[in-house]
């Protein structure tokens, strides 16, 4: 398969870009400066639903578009480009992905159409510490009559403060760090014992910290097999990482484009600063890095879509993409602020917002070092 977008994928990219580009970064600024209680636009989310974007990977029987990882990445890239806060990654990719993969017919009917319509929001409550460690799960679910009782604390739950359902990863056997023994539970955030604290982040996107204090759920809250969430979690996390990598490329490339414009128009010492060869070479290097990162991300997304691909192969491709996209996007925003000079430091200019967003995307689902480590470990050294 050619490592370029198909015509259909290109059209999807233009549609997403067109929609988000209408308001552009203004949307983020408005939500932030108005201190919006949700921190994201429910109207936009419904439009996502209408356009088939919210349910991009949900099968058509449940109201979705039935498309693949490449298409999800295309949308994620547009979100990164315009810095638009949305529940796409947490709900459409991670949340819906798990239900598509593991859900019972009832669970699918209950949640997927709502997500696809842009009405319902799911959130995955997985992380417990400050760094991505999907197997380091201490939260526990213990049998309690016909159901379970959950205890523990979760952090960095993307858009967890507005979720209609939480998918909580909890340990049902084994000990912290084991790959086995983790189960997933669909938890109503209104259940007694659930305490949710919104954490506004540096990039004006939101996550939540969640305390689970003797939270009682019924047996049908279990998503997938008892103790057996591991493989599905790995799959959906790789999907999420691929999308986060696409967002990083979107954000990095846009910061670069803003910088190119600035280089062409801003004058100093009587010349456009883009005439200075030292800046030209740095810009050319950055362009190259962005193209390399773009290839790595598309390669990973295509690998995820390949039927019957071995999980280890997909994981390796995703590790390359997330590490490379993260490193390059970081370089892009640093160069963007530096080349803008003083105005780049002001809140008035957009480049600083890209720097903030890239920082958060880099921490999302494993940073550069995490994925370098993953590659080395996977290759046995």
């Amino acid at each position, binding site marked *: 398969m050619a490592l370029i977008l198909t015509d259909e994928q290109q059209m999807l990219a233009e549609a997403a870009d067109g929609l988000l580009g209408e308001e552009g970064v203004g949307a983020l600024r408005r939500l932030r400066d108005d201190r919006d209680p949700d921190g994201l636009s429910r109207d936009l989310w419904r439009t996502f639903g209408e356009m088939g974007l919210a349910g991009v990977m949900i099968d058509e029987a449940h109201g979705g578009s039935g498309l693949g990882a490449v298409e999800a990445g295309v949308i994620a890239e547009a979100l990164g480009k315009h810095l638009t806060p949305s529940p796409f990654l947490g709900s459409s990719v991670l949340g819906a992905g798990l239900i598509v993969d593991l859900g019972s017919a009832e669970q699918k009917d209950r949640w997927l159409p709502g997500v696809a319509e842009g009405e319902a929001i799911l959130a995955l409550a997985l*992380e417990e*510490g*400050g*760094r*991505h460690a999907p197997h380091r799960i201490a939260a526990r679910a213990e049998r309690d009559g016909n159901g379970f009782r959950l205890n523990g604390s979760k*952090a*960095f739950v993307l858009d967890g403060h507005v979720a209609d359902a939480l998918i909580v990863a909890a340990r049902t056997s084994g000990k912290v760090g084991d790959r086995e023994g983790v189960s997933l539970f669909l938890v109503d955030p209104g259940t007694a014992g659930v305490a949710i604290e919104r*954490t*506004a*982040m*540096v*990039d*004006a996107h939101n*996550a939540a910290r969640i305390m689970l204090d003797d939270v009682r759920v019924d047996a049908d809250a279990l998503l997938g097999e008892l103790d057996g969430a591991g493989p599905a979690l790995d799959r959906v996390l790789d999907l999420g990482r691929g999308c986060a990598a696409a967002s990083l490329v979107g954000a990095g490339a846009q910061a670069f484009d803003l910088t190119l414009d600035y280089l062409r128009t801003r004058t*100093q*010492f009587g010349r456009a600063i883009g005439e*200075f060869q*030292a*800046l030209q070479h740095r810009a050319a290097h950055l362009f190259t890095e962005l193209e390399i990162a773009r290839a790595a991300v598309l390669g990973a997304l295509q690998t995820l879509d390949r039927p019957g691909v071995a999980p280890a192969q997909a994981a390796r491709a995703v590790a390359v993409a997330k590490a490379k996209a993260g490193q390059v996007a*970081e370089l892009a925003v*640093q160069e963007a*602020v*530096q080349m803008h*000079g*003083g105005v*780049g*430091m*002001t*809140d*008035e200019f957009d480049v*600083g*917002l890209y*720097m*903030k967003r890239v*920082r*958060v995307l880099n*921490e999302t689902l494993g*940073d*550069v*070092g*995490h994925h*370098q*480590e993953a590659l080395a470990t996977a290759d046995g050294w």
Partner: protein
Amino acid sequence: MSELEDFRAEVRAWLADNCPAEVRGPMAGEDDRIWGGRNATFKTPAHRLWLERMGARGWTAPEWPTEYGGGGLSRDQAKVLASELRRIEAQPPLFSFGVWMLGPALLKFGTEAQKQTFLPPIARGEIRWCQGYSEPGAGSDLAGLQTRAVDQGDHWIVNGQKVWTSYADQADWIFCLVRTDPEAPKHLGISFVLFDMATPGVSTKPITLISGKSPFCETFFDDVRVDKANLVGALNRGWDVAKYLLAHERTMIGAIGEGDVGRPLGQIAADAIGRDASGRLDQPMLRARIAEMEIDAEAFRLAMERTGDLAKAGRAHPALSSMLKYYGSELNKCRHELAMAAGGADALEWEGERSRNGQAARDWLRTKANSIEGGTSEIQLNIIAKHLLRLPGA
């Protein structure tokens, strides 16, 4: 050696008696800083006492002559004082653009009257200064300076706008570049003047940065009267004063590369993230990046010291300050990138008590200005290429 050791003993004894417990240990936040000035605020009475005691000995400006309120110390004595202050983790008795930047320029270019008038209050922390260099459209390129001073006999009338004036809204006086000859080309025709920020016609407006509220201001001059007695250096040759002062500013900004007195980032990260069985920070890739940075930081500290020693020996090219400014500011940016990586998701929070209102993230963002303020890294590299390497066309 023995005279120095006697001095060390004296310093140590004096500090034991005079440095309050409240000003020892790492600084917790901005409000630990003692800036002095007419409207000085102090976190505790002990902070005020610390400034007064150090100011009285002239140790707020250790190497200035005693007649101008300084400590009159030799460079070696000043090193001893600094090392004794570090030993007890004493916080600085004064943060002051007057001490760091204006003072050295006045010592070199000021008239005797100006030195007598301005230096002692600076050393005692009584007058707080700000700097008026940059203008919109004239950042790194000061040749484009627009603020105009029109000659009125014994004074000028100044009109124009400055930008990136740190703490303009809290400063008592400003040292400022103004154009006194609009016909002269480029850097000629600029003069270096001092005036009170309380003069009618001066107003300020804070700038919001990506890190949030900032000490930077836009500063506006609307028919501001400036006494000609407050011209420093020769008329229309303010660029000479400014260059000299910029070298001090560069060294000062570069010095942030030395990092805080506190513990190495590697230790902080290992405590936060955890260690593996052999005691290593349990994130090998991050650990490698931090190790590289810590090596650079230690080497940079030595380079700062060496450059100071070379200067004292009369063997330092002035452009070496560009080297320190460039390296120190890039290093500090790198340190904070790594601190953010070590902090992980926790360091991303922007509000609330747990993160002290996003202190880590705001500090990180703030460092991005290091390689812009006081002359961008690119400008420093140009200066090095031209003045130290003498490359053609530089």
